[in-house]
């Protein structure tokens, strides 16, 4: 059982969470890598699914931190340190990006030179969609995100020590530029890693769709993390029902936003009815995919929407935990739905999807825990901390 010093909010006992997460991460990643030797094609497809799943979640945490700085939010100060720690898991994901580079030939149709030569559309897109530029862009995205995450975290923990309010203003300025960079990099990352699986197809809403799903799930993960801390008796009276209520509101808002973007993308393509666009949705409707699509509509939107609509649900931690867990699972289904129809007809769920998701997740949560327990559990000297603790909805 981890424990906190109630005065300084530093960890007196880091508990076993980190060890368990690391053990799980290594075990399941190793299992998945074994799968690479039996079915490399399925290995890369499931690895990309899980990589996209966790990367979008961790990026959601980075966005959350910057959003709170830019808006000078008070309520979220007590929750910021955990989000900062989660965003510091990005280097783990950079390592997890390496297998995708090895699997480019299996994953991306446009990486086949002979196909590009005989395909006018791909030849025209080749100056952007080529292996070298793809790798360079991937590294550039990670560089931008990692620098932002580390700079903001460094300022934040410095303030713990010196209590200088100047850090608050500095972080606000960094975040204002950071959000701008974030929007571009996440959009292009979504285009590169997921949309280019179907290199003929395009949607200008795709980047937003990826971002919204990730941010939503990030809020669900943070909610579950704080619930776990509270159940271990930590942050009692610091992260209160009022903060969980606000997380519930964010879940509500972003499940609606997710449906709005996903729906708009669908309706426009449905209206125009142009074969080169509708093919993407047909691949997600025929051969058993209809059930997955319907599950997304109902369990990623309608059920969370109709439950989170009510005041009492947002103040009921048991129900919030259930809905947050559901949204985490559905985000994985969403990534599965984006990636897998590319690789032949029919819904092919492999055990490697499960092991890679748990494996990468274990490593991400291990890094999160290491970073989180290294400093105060809340920004201890933030000028807004007292107001944040006393926050009422």
């Amino acid at each position, binding site marked *: 059982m981890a424990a906190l010093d109630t005065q300084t909010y530093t960890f007196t006992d880091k508990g076993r969470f980190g060890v368990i997460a690391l053990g799980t991460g290594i075990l399941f990643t190793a299992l998945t890598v074994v799968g690479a030797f039996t079915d490399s094609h399925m290995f890369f497809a499931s690895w990309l699914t899980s990589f996209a799943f966790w990367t979008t979640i961790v990026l959601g945490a980075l966005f959350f931190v910057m959003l709170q700085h830019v808006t000078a939010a008070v309520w979220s100060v007590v929750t910021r340190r955990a989000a900062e720690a989660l965003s510091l898991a990005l280097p783990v994901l950079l390592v997890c990006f390496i297998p995708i580079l090895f699997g480019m030939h299996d994953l991306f149709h446009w990486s086949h030179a002979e196909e590009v030569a005989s395909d006018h559309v791909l030849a025209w897109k080749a100056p952007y969609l080529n292996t070298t530029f793809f790798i360079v862009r991937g590294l550039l995205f990670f560089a931008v995100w990692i620098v932002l995450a580390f700079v903001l975290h460094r300022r934040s923990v410095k303030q713990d020590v010196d209590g200088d309010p100047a850090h608050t203003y500095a972080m606000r300025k960094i975040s204002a530029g950071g959000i701008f960079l974030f929007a571009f990099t996440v959009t292009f990352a979504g285009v590169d890693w997921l949309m280019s699986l179907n290199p003929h197809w395009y949607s200008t809403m795709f980047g937003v769709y990826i971002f919204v799903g990730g941010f939503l799930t990030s809020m669900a993960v943070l909610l579950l993390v704080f619930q776990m801390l509270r159940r271990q008796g930590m942050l009692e009276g610091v992260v209160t029902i009022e903060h969980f209520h606000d997380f519930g509101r964010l879940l509500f808002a972003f499940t609606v936003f997710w449906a709005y973007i996903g*729906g708009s993308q*669908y*309706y426009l393509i*449905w*209206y125009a*009815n142009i074969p080169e666009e509708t093919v993407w949705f047909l691949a997600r409707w025929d051969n058993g995919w209809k059930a997955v699509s319907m599950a997304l509509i109902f369990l990623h939107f309608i059920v969370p929407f109709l439950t989170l*609509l009510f*005041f009492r649900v947002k103040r009921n931690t048991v129900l919030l935990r259930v809905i947050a867990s559901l949204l985490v699972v559905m985000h994985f289904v969403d990534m599965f739905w984006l990636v897998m129809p590319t690789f032949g007809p029919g819904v092919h769920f492999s055990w490697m999807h499960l092991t890679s998701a748990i494996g990468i997740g274990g490593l991400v949560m291990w890094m999160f825990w290491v970073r989180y327990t290294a400093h105060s559990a809340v920004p201890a000297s933030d000028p807004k901390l007292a107001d944040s603790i006393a926050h*009422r909805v």
Partner: protein
Amino acid sequence: MKTHALIAAFEHPGALLDAAVRVREAGYTHYDCHSPFPIHGMDDAMGLKRSPVGFIAGGMAALGATIGFSLQTWVTTSAYPLVISGKPMFSWQAYIIITFALFVLFGAFGAVFGMFGLNRLPRLHHPIFHSELLAKASDDGFLISIEASDARFNEEETRAFLASIGGTHIELVRGE
């Protein structure tokens, strides 16, 4: 002129919060607090229940969505069926935008007019406006008024009570 209420001033928002709790605990029900800005925690201090306006807005929104969807279904499938770009008569995808728009419109009407109804607005005059003190509630006054319609109201006792919980400038408001 009929006695309408007793109104008293308090030092600051915190004092008003404490006073509101004391008034509620003393058993008064027909009373109100007046301040230049909303005070956090006042709902709890006064023991106010959550407003049902959300359910009115929600019900209206559901009604709007139903009307929007049904109207389009009726028009495109039976009243004036017309094939548009080879799509089926009942193309629910095309209805969603109008359905959503009416959902929002009716929801907003439900919220605004529901609020009006619950607050018994529009209303041109209220007897509390005969008070001289009340004008300060839009400047620097933190006031509590206890109305004569309250079962516990007694001019002498209530005046003494307001003074005992820290009320100053206590004024008897007459008028209808």
